């Protein structure tokens, strides 16, 4: 009789642990998803800003046609991208295009002084750093989720319920960091190192 009770006890404990481990995995997965949707929100905000910025720069520097093309193409490529890795490389193209655009703007004092441009510049800098922060949060959550999925004993639960590892959202070193548009930030800092 005692043996039966011991077996029942062990089974109940195992069951409780499984529920706990499962719920933890769900929490981590939801956090990672939340992080991803936040990146998405910020990337979309940047897509919306690009046409505005291009229009504003056009008003002062109409002949930089090639550059406008490049930025526009990078933008449509990024909107069409699928998967974290492809998205990241498309975003790199946008970042470098925007960098050139803003470098060009340096040559036009009237443009640099225009209220509209300054507001757009702030919006863009803000969005760039939000993308960086969103990526930082997402990668941290993915790291936690992946560790949990791989490490024993939670790996057993993860395998049974098909929890999948997620890709990191990586941006190459060369393109990492916000566009250098804020003149007060002359130290070329990178806000994140993932």
């Amino acid at each position, binding site marked *: 009789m005692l043996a039966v009770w011991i077996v029942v006890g062990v089974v109940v404990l195992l069951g409780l642990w499984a529920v706990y481990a499962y719920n933890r995995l769900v929490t981590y997965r939801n*956090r990672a998803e*939340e*992080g991803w949707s*936040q990146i998405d929100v*910020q990337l979309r905000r940047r897509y919306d800003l690009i046409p505005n910025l291009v229009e504003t720069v056009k008003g002062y520097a109409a002949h930089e046609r090639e550059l406008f093309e490049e930025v526009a193409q990078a933008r449509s490529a990024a909107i069409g991208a699928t998967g974290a890795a492809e998205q990241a490389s498309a975003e790199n193209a946008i970042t470098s295009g925007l960098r050139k655009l803003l470098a060009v703007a340096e040559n036009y004092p009237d443009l640099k002084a225009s209220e509209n441009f300054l*507001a757009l510049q*702030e*919006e863009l*800098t*803000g*969005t760039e*750093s*939000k993308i*960086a*922060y*969103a990526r*930082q*949060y997402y990668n941290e*959550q993915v790291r936690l989720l992946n560790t949990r999925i791989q490490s024993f004993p939670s790996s057993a639960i993860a395998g049974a319920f098909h929890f999948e590892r997620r890709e990191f959202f990586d941006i190459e070193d060369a393109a990492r960091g916000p566009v250098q548009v*804020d003149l*007060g*930030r002359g*130290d070329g*800092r*990178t*806000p*994140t*190192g993932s």
Partner: protein
Amino acid sequence: MHEQIAANKRKTVLLFVLAIAFTGLVGFAIGFLFFNGGVAGVVIAVALAAILSISSYFAGDRLVLASTRAREVTPQEEPRLHNVVEGLAIAAGIPKPRVYVVPEQAPNAFATGRNPEHSSVAVTQGLLDIMNRVELEGVIGHEMSHVLDRDILIGTVVATVVGAAVLMSEFFMRSWFWSGGRMGRRDGGGGGDAGLVALVLFAVGIVLLIIAPIAGQLIKLSVSRNREYLADAQGVLLTRYPPGLIAALEKIRDAPHAMRAANNATAHLWLDQPSRVPGDETSTMEKLFSTHPPIQDRIDRLREM
């Protein structure tokens, strides 16, 4: 980080209990001395503490913001500040706090609220004027850690509860002096054990009343000082850029302005102690009774990271 938050929640509960027990003790002393029996005092004090806790839980942030004359600003008015706050909220994985500006020339900042879902960040006009974006991010990162760790709740609530006890004991001390020390005192001159016990309790009560303001102050300090180091470290973890906060603290250290609205009740909430006199050396006594670690210590610790 989540373990840190859990530990902080436990400490919050402990501090609540301590604060209410402390208030009860003071209430007992007052009741015993002035109303012929400590029980009524305890009941009144604890009830008062409970009411205060609850109301400061729900309205403490508004009270703090109003007392500093902070004004909520829109993203159109302060785009840079809003962008920085939103960015760091994303990094911390919490909703964006409300954004306030305090009309004050000394550079400083604080966060208040009860949880990340109901939180506010306030910076002074002076801070906005002298900080560049990286430094502003350092400052907001520090404040965001206070929000994330529920420091804002401890700060707001414990200050209110202990503040009330201090206020009460001060009130009674004064009326005691004014009435020549005879107000409602138990007429226990009959001698014997009862008289002795009454005398001892009487003495304890007096001592308690004298140390209450000091003890209240010390509780407030213990809430604040270590958390500043922690928030510095954690803020830097969010921005991933220690030089930003270091530069910001250096600017605060060297700023020529003192805060006009320096107020004891909210001192511990600010990024740096508002009552600090610019350029003044910190003495040992000052260290013991200050709500914040010396700013140079904080800078040195950040440099070591």
